[in-house]
């Protein structure tokens, strides 16, 4: 059977189609059908000929097979150092083989490639820094995911996730109305504590246009209130767009490049419409990667920049603390051993390590901040990056992947882990659930709100 009812090469474009796929509990039928899904070899090879150019071809060709990438890969380390987990092997035996065979591969090959692409690589890009030839296997896996997605060999949740972006311009079924209503409702909840607190929607020419992760709207709405409170206390002239507010991109994890473009263009349209001085995104790693780092290229912007300058939440927060817009009460600083998770997507892949260290210097009393080893650009993935967290089929593999972060955290002796990234936050929550090492974990916003000096004019009247 070539194309299944659930598992096929078609993209998911409407709420109805999303619901249909969601109705297949855990993707049981989906994966069953995948076993019979045929491979459109012509399409595969044509796509490769069109898109696999000198950079990647050269990477595959000059790989010296030296194995120096092995030790750089946390999945190699936590999976008993089996040679099948060496990054070079993983990519050569998948993308390398497809190219060698000019796309002439079968169903079983594609299903194995799917497992390797989503359960044996989180696209953390760490190995690229350890290769003498500068071969970035994470980038190649991103590319391979695109090929697999095009052929229908993609984990169920990510097919749905990409479909959500196509249907809702959000990673979940959150509509624009849901977003605005939830934000307004959450702000109302805190109005009594912070008189004058509002959520300015669609204000043109604001200093900051704030974008979020749809999960916050659906599952963690207090995060929206916290963002509003912090902007309010910092005296920022900010706004949220009623359309184009979603910064994340499960489509990027899925390799659905067309959906990536649609999603990021919705944010760029909001920038063009509202003309903010700059955009600030929430505490999310891949959202920043998608909208700020990769997005401009998907949208065909040759200068690699979004229409308005865009920064990560940690950059804004570091600036607000460094310039005194927000002031921390020294008495309320963290006075227990605390460590920090460096998100691959904006630390290794966007160089923001100084911003997070600046923040730590403001919010942690001297002597209590303990770095993980290794850290900054060399830090390991949380264990759940690149979509790994959300894939039920690979949950067992994901739980093994958490071991590296677990051990890194245990080695610091800290009981509190600050994770300014949704994916990292989830992974750290899950590792506590799975391995019970007695830690707490937090985003920055809730910690900040507890320790800021609130000027009198911001306080409610007695």
């Amino acid at each position, binding site marked *: 059977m070539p194309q299944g009812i659930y598992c096929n090469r078609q993209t998911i474009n409407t709420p109805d189609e999303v619901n249909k796929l969601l109705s297949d509990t855990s993707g049981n039928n989906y994966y069953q059908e995948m076993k019979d899904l045929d491979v459109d070899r012509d399409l595969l090879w044509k796509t490769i000929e069109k898109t696999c150019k000198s950079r990647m071809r*050269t990477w595959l060709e*000059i790989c010296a097979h030296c194995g120096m990438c092995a030790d750089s890969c946390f999945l190699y380390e936590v999976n008993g150092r089996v040679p099948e987990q060496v990054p070079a092997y993983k990519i050569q035996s998948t993308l390398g083989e497809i190219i060698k065979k000019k796309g002439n591969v079968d169903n079983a090959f594609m299903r194995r490639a799917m497992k390797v692409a989503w359960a044996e690589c989180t696209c953390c890009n760490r190995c690229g820094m350890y290769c003498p030839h500068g071969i970035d296997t994470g980038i190649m896996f991103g590319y391979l995911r695109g090929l697999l997605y095009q052929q229908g060999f993609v984990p169920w949740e990510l097919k749905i996730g990409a479909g959500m972006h196509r249907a809702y311009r959000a990673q979940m079924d959150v509509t624009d109305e849901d977003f605005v209503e939830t934000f307004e409702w959450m702000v109302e909840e805190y109005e009594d504590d912070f008189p004058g607190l509002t959520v300015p929607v669609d204000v043109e020419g604001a200093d900051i246009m704030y974008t979020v992760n749809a999960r916050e709207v659906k599952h963690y709405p207090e995060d929206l209130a916290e963002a509003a409170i912090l902007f309010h206390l910092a005296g920022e002239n900010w706004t949220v767009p009623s359309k184009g507010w979603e910064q994340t991109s499960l489509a990027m994890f899925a390799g659905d490049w067309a959906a990536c473009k649609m999603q990021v263009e919705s944010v760029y349209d909001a920038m063009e419409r509202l003309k903010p001085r700059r955009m600030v995104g929430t505490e999310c790693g891949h959202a920043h990667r998608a909208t700020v780092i990769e997005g401009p290229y998907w949208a065909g912007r040759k200068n690699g920049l979004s229409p308005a300058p865009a920064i990560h939440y940690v950059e804004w927060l570091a600036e607000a603390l460094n310039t005194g817009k927000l002031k921390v009460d020294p008495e309320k600083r963290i006075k227990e051993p605390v460590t920090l998770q460096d998100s691959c997507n904006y630390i290794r892949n966007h160089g923001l390590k100084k911003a997070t260290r600046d923040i730590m210097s403001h919010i942690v009393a001297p002597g209590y901040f303990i770095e993980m080893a290794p850290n900054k650009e060399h830090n390991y993935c949380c264990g759940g990056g690149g979509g790994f967290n959300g894939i039920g089929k690979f949950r067992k593999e994901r739980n093994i992947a958490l071991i590296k972060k677990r051990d890194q955290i245990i080695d610091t002796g800290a009981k509190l882990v600050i994770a300014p990234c949704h994916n990292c936050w989830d992974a750290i929550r899950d590792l506590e659930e799975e391995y019970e090492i007695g830690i707490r974990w937090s985003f920055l916003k809730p910690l900040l709100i507890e320790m800021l000096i609130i000027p009198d004019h911001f306080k409610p009247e007695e």
Partner: protein
Amino acid sequence: MHDFLTGPLFWIALFVCLVGSLTRFVLYFKGLSWQLDRVAYTTYPQAGAKGAFRSIYKWLIPFGTRGWQTQPFITLGFFGFHLGVILVPLFLTGHALFMESKVGFHFFTLSVGLGDFLSWTAVVAGTFLLIRRLVLPEVRILTTWNDIFILLISIAPFVTGLLARYQVGDYGFWLNMHILSGEVVLLAIPFTKLSHVFLFFASRAQLGMDYGIKRGGMKGTKMAW
């Protein structure tokens, strides 16, 4: 035989090596695409050049990068081998004399002792790399016959050269074998994994530009990537 090896075949090998390498080097950069690679190469030439330069030179220094630092044994093996295979062909006194006779000039020359030392280093380090390939599971799984073949043809000029140098058996025979094996390497450079001789610089430059422009360089990070 000797005349053929040092005459026509030498010129053919040199020509194929240089023209082939240059062509591939140019084609590499022509094949880069800002949209497919998602790097704004031409918009930020300065940031790109800085990133590319840092990415190349740090990796050329032994223990210059974290990658080299964390794996000291292979670092010593790599640099030992590469020092030999680069310095000896270009700067050995015998090679300088040959070059003088062919093109009328030569580079500086290595002392006899240093030449011997570097040649032996290349052979020993090359053998170490070969053994490592066969012994370590994480390298063995990647190893193909092609990898072994490439390593052997790279060591061959040194083995034959040393046999000729110490006049083991028939000097003339080993000398011819030495020249032939050297020419085999020249011919192989543009078409095999030996293309890393020049594509190393291209590939490192690309990643350096990627990070230098897009992934942190313009945020002040000074990584070697």
